[in-house]
């Protein structure tokens, strides 16, 4: 189909779709007047029953933990897919083909990368450890932690970046994070309660070690997400890195 025809046809039918959407929206409750009941009931009970003050994480890692298990495996599958698609069919890099056309950074930029990296790692752990209490949790922490090694690459320390991100243990960590989630669920099953039921003491509300399995699951997610983003990033970069650094 020619592009002009395609776009014109789209304006007709896409317009109909838009209008249908708008006419449906007219029957929605007016903006700003959420009616419940699901969210309100959970907001009421979760602090007492789960000792978790961040209700969103209580939902994610407990009330609707099965969703999050599925989402973790979506992440896991997608990264497996990326690794599979970008796998190297054969080693093609040879000496004559070194291409290194990177823009050189100033000394200041390179020097400030190391402190930035440290701050990122500390901040990542901070976010991760407080998931059940304040905004944060394994997922956000994972993305923050995963961004730290990329600073190495940015500040031209390619060799250290390669050593971190191409480590064989990374895939094991990723799988252990995803599998660990399932194992926490199965542990509940082994104790005779339904899958993913909390089986740890709940602790004092507001304490870092409170709310039982929520923190544990959040940690698993954190490991998985960190490893997943590093693996995906390296999968894209491996060819370029191989061209920049001498192959042993």
């Amino acid at each position, binding site marked *: 189909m020619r592009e002009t025809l395609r776009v014109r046809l789209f304006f007709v039918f896409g317009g109909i779709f838009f209008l249908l959407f708008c006419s449906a929206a007219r029957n929605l409750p007016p903006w700003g007047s959420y009616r419940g009941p699901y969210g309100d009931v959970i907001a009421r009970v979760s602090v007492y029953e789960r000792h978790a003050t961040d209700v969103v994480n209580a939902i994610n890692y407990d009330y609707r933990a099965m969703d999050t298990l599925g989402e973790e495996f979506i992440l896991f599958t997608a990264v497996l897919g990326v*690794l599979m698609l970008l796998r190297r069919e054969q080693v093609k890099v040879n000496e004559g083909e070194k291409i290194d056309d990177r823009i050189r950074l100033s000394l200041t930029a390179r020097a400030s990368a190391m402190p930035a990296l440290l701050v990122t790692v500390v901040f990542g752990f901070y976010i991760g450890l407080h998931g059940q209490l304040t905004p944060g949790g394994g997922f956000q922490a994972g993305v923050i932690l995963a961004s730290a090694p990329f600073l190495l690459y940015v500040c031209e320390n390619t060799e250290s970046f390669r050593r971190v991100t191409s480590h064989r243990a990374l895939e094991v960590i990723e799988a252990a994070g995803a*599998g660990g989630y399932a194992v926490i669920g199965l542990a509940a099953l082994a104790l005779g309660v339904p899958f993913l*039921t909390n089986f740890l003491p709940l602790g004092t509300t507001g304490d870092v070690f409170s709310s039982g399995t929520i923190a544990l699951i959040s940690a698993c997610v954190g490991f998985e997400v960190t490893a997943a983003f590093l693996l995906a990033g390296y999968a894209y970069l491996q060819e370029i890195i191989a061209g920049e650094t001498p192959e042993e």
Partner: protein
Amino acid sequence: MTANQAFSLTPLPVVVPMAGAAVMAGLRKWLSRATVDSLGILFSAITLAVSICLLSGAVHAPMVYWFGNWHPRGSVILGIGFVVDPVSAGLTVLASSLTLLSLVFSWRLVESGSNHFQPLMLIFLAAMCGFSLTVDIFNLFVFFELMSTAAFALCGLKTAEPAPLQGSFNFAVTNTIAAFLILTGIALLYAVTGALNMAQIGLSLGGRHDSLVLFAFTLLTCGFFIKAAIVPFHLWLPDAHAVAPTSVCVLFSGLMVELGLVAVARLRFLVFAQTFLSHEPQLRAVLFGLGTLTIVIGGLMCYGEHHLKRMLAYSTICHSGIMLLAIGAGGAIGFSALMIYLVAHAFIKGGLFLGSGILLHRLRGIGEKTLFGKGRSLRWTGLLWFLGAAGLAAAPPFLTMTGEANLFHQASDVGSSWISWACLLGGSLTCAAVLRVGMHTFFGWGTEPITDEAASIGELPETDAGDRRIFWYQYLPTAICMAVPLALVLRPGWLRVASEACARFASQAYMLPLVYKGMASSGPAPVLSVATADAMWHGTVALVLAVLLACSSVFRSRIRRPLRLGAFLERRLTPLRAMQSGHPGDYVLWLTIGVATIGLANVLLFS
């Protein structure tokens, strides 16, 4: 095993393959191909065993399982629930047996990346099981996404050629849009009901049918129709099948596509059960219209294709249309028609794909012209191939016929017996296409096959060229696939249980107390056994017509010009072929046209 023990196994069909996949993927660099293959077979066998336990428990007493032990509080459902009834447990059995068969088939044979293939297959299995069991609409979406993600990756397994990447790109784009359509629909329903459990949504929607509910219905059904490859949402399917490895196609065509329809049925019977009470004829008209269109386009294109996998993919589209007719016919019998047909079709189509996998492995080609006359020595494959063809036509000894018998019964009850003609057309077109390929390949009859541009996609074989032997473990899954739909007809005792279970699944009045209280009220009366004489007659006629049509193609040089209907169909489907342009923009446009048209029709017809 008591029922209670069986139900503590409920999460396992999802968790076992997931955990297995994590182990295999984590250690894949250290494990040999054979080990990973055996682990894959082992985990899917465990899943099969667990699913069978669940099924036997569910037949005695259906139950609901609350994750995290969060039981409903009054009318509000807090957590995520799995409903284990014979229908959903049966689907997990089907999913795990198909996965097991295709993993056995690909044992050390099909290209597996660097051991990426087997964990992806297990995740795919986990997603299908979760999708069948869950009664929470957002959880359904999550498993839909998981299933799609695994499918995208599996589809692009053969990275050595450009075609698989385009096929999986088109697949990924359309199915991701499907996911967003579904999510938007879920959000709209959540806004007005404040619930995510399908039973609670259905309860709280009642008979409401304003523009909001209708639009949400449109979005959800269209999203699942994209998965189910209903015209005009079908375009991704032939591309994806043409490029995916054979053992993946078995799962795509055998169950993934059909699960889209099961989800639509679930929505219709549980969420929107009372929405259309006063508009049943209009709803039937919409679904029958879509179904018939799908049958005609799928059937014609099936006959017009010469790439074996693409041809079988179009046949899946056509049969998906037949199953949509069963949803349209509605009622307990209509739904049991869907389920029986689904089981039969899954095995037959799986067997045919495995057969084409054997051909690709042995004869190093997948185009009809390449295969012409080369399969004379493959007698067993040929026998299974022709059995599969007869099964597609719903010819007498096959289970497909029982499914169609139920469909015709329900259709004549609602006064639309004309749809049996649509089934006849679809069955004979797809059967004829498979017969034509069989006659050309296994007998080498007639003149050289006609071919088309797309017939050489993915001709690069998926297996190692050095070893072209075929082992018993390639024949066995194929033979089992063909034997199951025959064996299930010979032991019809299960049909009564199945139709009772289907009647319950299709009844909101039965499902609501099951979800809320965890106990089953006395279900609706089991359906009487349906007379199959009519369907037998139909199936036989379809088979005869198919043979005639195939012969008019194969022996085209020996018959007079006006009789060459088959050859005419093979050459003259240019407008339909143009629709299948391989351009993602075109596919998104067709998708938009479909959603807008169906949405407009819904609003005009029902409000």
